[in-house]
């Protein structure tokens, strides 16, 4: 391995941070798509020079961009996301039913096995697939049949924000929606079922253990151990050892178990990371101290990682897609903040440095480990 490429989506454009394996000196390119919101960028593991970006605007809607040269040049591809059939209605904030309306793409997940296949998670929540490199998109409508009429938007909208593709089993897809929960397909996206048993949302739902409606913020999985899943829920950090069939809480000694992202170490499937946030009402680190928490035991026992991070007067947020790891021998971990900083650690979180400090608010961070 000889380097990493960090793909950063912000409120006002995309940035690409590149370094060799030492991860000491960084080249920063951008803004790409200046002035547009970039909710997510992602690269293909089959062809690392193929990148996708979700570019959107309240004025001009959704655009999908594709690069075939590692982000040097980009071409707009298909942006026609049309729900299959009549999409019907879902719960609205006030408990009434509300029509399904496409707003934007939150997540792009290239297939781990096919260069031209890519999935898009959208708001209002649905999963789309393209098999022609993003030129055309088709919904996998079976997902909305999993009690879609009971799904409801979270504060960020009713977004499908997390897509996990099992690299060893192309039939298995896991997704998460705010605020509907986690769902799994074992037949390549044809049919779906909720996988929310064990979640407790007593502060948000009339039925704390409802089958759907939970505000799942993020899911993570290690590719070598796809039966084990980790979840940052609205409140609670959760773990499943049976592909999501059941969950148990592993918040342990965290100072608060509210947060957005969760990630797994590239080489240690039992080492996980979260960034605790004070509460659902106060979206910033507790005590003004920016701390990543690491568990080497798959949850329950957590240690604060603070070296190089601000430990006073820090009131940024770290959004759900803004934490990612590389797979170099010494695992690198990266996160972006709503204050525009991107921090990196080349030693699994033991110490941190800002790669860049003054970007627009960071919406997403993805990492490619370059051959």
């Amino acid at each position: 391995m000889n380097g990493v490429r960090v793909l950063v989506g912000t409120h006002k454009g995309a940035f690409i941070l590149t370094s060799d394996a030492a991860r000491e000196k960084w080249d920063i390119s951008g803004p790409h798509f200046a002035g547009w919101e970039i909710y997510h960028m992602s690269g293909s593991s089959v062809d690392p020079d193929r990148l996708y970006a979700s570019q959107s605007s309240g004025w001009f809607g959704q655009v999908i961009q594709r690069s075939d040269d590692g982000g040097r040049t980009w071409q707009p591809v298909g942006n026609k996301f049309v729900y299959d059939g009549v999409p019907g209605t879902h719960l609205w904030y006030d408990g009434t039913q509300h029509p399904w309306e496409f707003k934007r793409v939150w997540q792009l997940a290239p297939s781990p096995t096919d260069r031209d296949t890519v999935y898009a998670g959208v708001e209002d929540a649905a999963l789309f697939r393209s098999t022609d490199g993003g030129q055309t998109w088709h919904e996998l409508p079976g997902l909305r049949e999993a009690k879609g009429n009971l799904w409801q938007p979270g504060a960020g909208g009713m977004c499908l924000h997390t897509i996990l593709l099992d690299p060893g089993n192309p039939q298995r897809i896991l997704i998460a929606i705010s605020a509907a929960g986690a769902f799994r397909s074992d037949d390549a996206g044809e049919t779906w079922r909720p996988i929310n048993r064990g979640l407790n949302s007593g502060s948000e739902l009339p039925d704390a253990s409802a089958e759907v409606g939970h505000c799942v913020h993020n899911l993570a999985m290690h590719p070598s151990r796809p039966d084990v899943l980790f979840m940052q829920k609205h409140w609670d950090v959760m773990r499943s050892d049976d592909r999501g069939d059941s969950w148990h809480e592993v918040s342990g000694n965290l100072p608060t178990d509210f947060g957005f992202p969760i990630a797994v170490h590239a080489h240690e499937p039992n080492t996980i990371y979260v960034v605790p946030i004070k509460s659902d009402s106060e979206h910033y680190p507790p005590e003004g101290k920016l701390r990543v928490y690491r568990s080497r035991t798959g949850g329950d026992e957590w240690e604060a990682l603070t070296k190089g991070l601000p430990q006073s007067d820090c009131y940024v947020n770290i959004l759900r897609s803004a934490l990612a790891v590389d797979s170099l021998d010494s695992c690198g971990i990266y996160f972006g903040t709503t204050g525009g900083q991107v921090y990196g650690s080349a030693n699994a979180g033991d110490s941190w440095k800002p790669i860049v400090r003054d970007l627009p608010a960071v919406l997403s961070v993805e990492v490619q480990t370059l051959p």
Partner: protein
Amino acid sequence: MIRVILPYHLRTLAGVGKEVELEIAGPLTLRSVLDALEIQYPMLGGTIRDHVTRERRPFIRFFACGEDLSLESPDLALPDAVAAGREPFQIVGAMAGG
């Protein structure tokens, strides 16, 4: 040949300057201008009108000859001055922000 002025972000998306020229066959209407624009610049599909309903996106406005045509029928005939190329048809991102 008619002249169309695009908002900044659509110029960068289409890779064009401030103004583009379109050849319109048949009646010159809001609909025929937008149809021709999307054929010539397919990346603009969905950015001005909804892909399915073909309705104007809420934060887009249409101006010509000092008039706001945003709420007019898509079949409204555009002014002769636009047809003759003396005046541009303007697609504008609605004013918003501070």
